[in-house]
């Protein structure tokens, strides 16, 4: 079945569903400058973060994340704002190795001040934006879609409406040749044996179980009561009673398709299929991992509502219940609450989600994109010890 998709073809064969110009500060002190450049530009986007060049145990993770993010196929060009640390070269080289071809690196010490840096970057960014708008999408195969599956602010309906409906859409896409990535290791704690049973071979299944065990080790070693954060107080108020219950409901986002493989945080899948990526449950850290892993569209299910979006990946919000959709419509793109009301079946809503993904892939803006929500957070282990 040929696809109705039209996307941007990149030099390395990857596909972009957007053509963003990204302003990437290489130091937290340049975050406000990056934001100001994007705000004043003709449509460039920026991320901000709090890394100041620290060379601690999180350094490798941070460099890997920034390289992957800067080279996401949804990006037409990246403007790096640097202060001259040697790690910055590593990030740029890393991004190039992962497919980044068009970029400018602006060095603060060469330019002389943050104000001048802002002016120069603005001119360059606007030039890129103009070029990007002139580029045309071309016919793309189903494999152009690399879908990220996310949930946040879950309630008891997440696992019975939005998540399984998303699973229907995800299964359909994977069957057509697209890729789909499930994340949030903490969310499958208790359900990992189910996912492992669906792996294409025992080695992949073993890896899924190992990733969850590794996560548990890092939490238990600190003597932390995992129930402190998951299910969260909001989850419990909404009706979720145990971590396993929440995990079973979360795992439903990945439908029933077999797992082709696992991915470390920010790792890019090599062949098409369904994957599990080791990410934290922190909504925004997960998105950073997805962006670094070259996911190009995200579906984010939510029971309580969240404005979260990404500078580079269109993030489609699906509500689990109709009252939330009606009370905060500017946060939600599609309502799956009709399943709970018996108005639509799981298959019907799954269909709607599938169609929404296709339309968004082809350029339709999500609410989060229109609202300018460009959240970003670096995922760190801090002093957490993994045995």
């Amino acid at each position: 079945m040929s696809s109705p998709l039209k996307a941007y073809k990149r030099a390395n064969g990857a596909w972009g569903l957007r053509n963003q110009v990204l302003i990437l500060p290489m130091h937290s002190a340049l975050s406000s400058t990056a934001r100001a450049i994007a705000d004043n530009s003709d449509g460039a986007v920026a991320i901000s973060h709090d890394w100041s060049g620290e060379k601690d145990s999180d350094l490798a993770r941070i460099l890997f994340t920034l390289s992957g993010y800067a080279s996401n196929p949804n990006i037409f060009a990246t403007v790096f704002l640097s202060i001259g640390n040697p790690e910055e070269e590593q990030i740029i080289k890393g991004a190039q190795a992962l497919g980044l071809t068009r970029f400018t690196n602006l060095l603060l010490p060469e330019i002389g001040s943050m104000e001048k840096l802002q002016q120069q970057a603005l001119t360059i960014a606007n030039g890129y934006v103009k070029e990007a708008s002139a580029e045309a999408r071309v016919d793309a195969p189903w494999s152009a879609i690399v879908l990220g599956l996310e949930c946040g602010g879950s309630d008891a309906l997440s696992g019975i409406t939005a998540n399984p409906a998303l699973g229907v859409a995800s299964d359909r896409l994977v069957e057509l040749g697209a890729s789909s990535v499930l994340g949030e290791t903490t969310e499958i704690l208790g359900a990992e044996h189910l996912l492992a049973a669906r792996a294409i071979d025992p080695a992949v299944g073993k890896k899924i179980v190992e990733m969850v065990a590794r996560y548990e080790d890092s939490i238990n070693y600190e003597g932390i009561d995992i129930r402190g954060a998951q299910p969260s107080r909001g989850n419990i108020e909404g009706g979720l009673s145990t971590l396993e219950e929440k995990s079973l409901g979360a795992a439903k986002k990945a439908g029933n398709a077999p797992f082709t493989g696992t991915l470390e945080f920010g790792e890019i899948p090599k062949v098409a299929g369904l994957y599990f990526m080791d990410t934290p449950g922190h909504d925004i850290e997960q998105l950073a991992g997805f962006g670094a892993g070259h996911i190009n569209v995200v579906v984010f299910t939510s029971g309580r509502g969240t404005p979260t979006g990404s500078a580079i990946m269109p993030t489609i919000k699906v509500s689990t219940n109709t009252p939330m959709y009606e009370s905060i419509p500017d946060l939600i793109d599609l309502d799956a609450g009709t399943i709970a009301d018996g108005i639509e079946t799981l298959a019907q809503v799954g269909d709607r989600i599938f169609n929404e993904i296709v339309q968004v892939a082809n350029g339709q803006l999500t609410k989060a994109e229109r609202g300018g929500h460009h959240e970003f957070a670096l995922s760190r282990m801090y002093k957490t010890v993994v045995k």
Partner: protein
Amino acid sequence: MRKVLILDPRDNIAVCLADLAEGDVIKQDDITITVKNKIPRGHKIATSEIAKNDGIIKYGERMGHAVAPIAIGEHVHVHNILGDRLSAEQV
């Protein structure tokens, strides 16, 4: 409108789709249940008798266990069940 949602025939709980009051009678498909407590929308209601230490089954899978006996129609939540994985209690 359906008041509860049963996800799998093997389940011993159902998810409430509306706030239920004590004394409400759920008549759906082939089940008839009298609600034993006030149960908020989104929370679970027992659709079978559940003994202490029995598994709580949702989506056909075990999501935890009972720490007290639970009657049909009772609210099933953090006050009478615990997860299996990180629970201090041994089954």
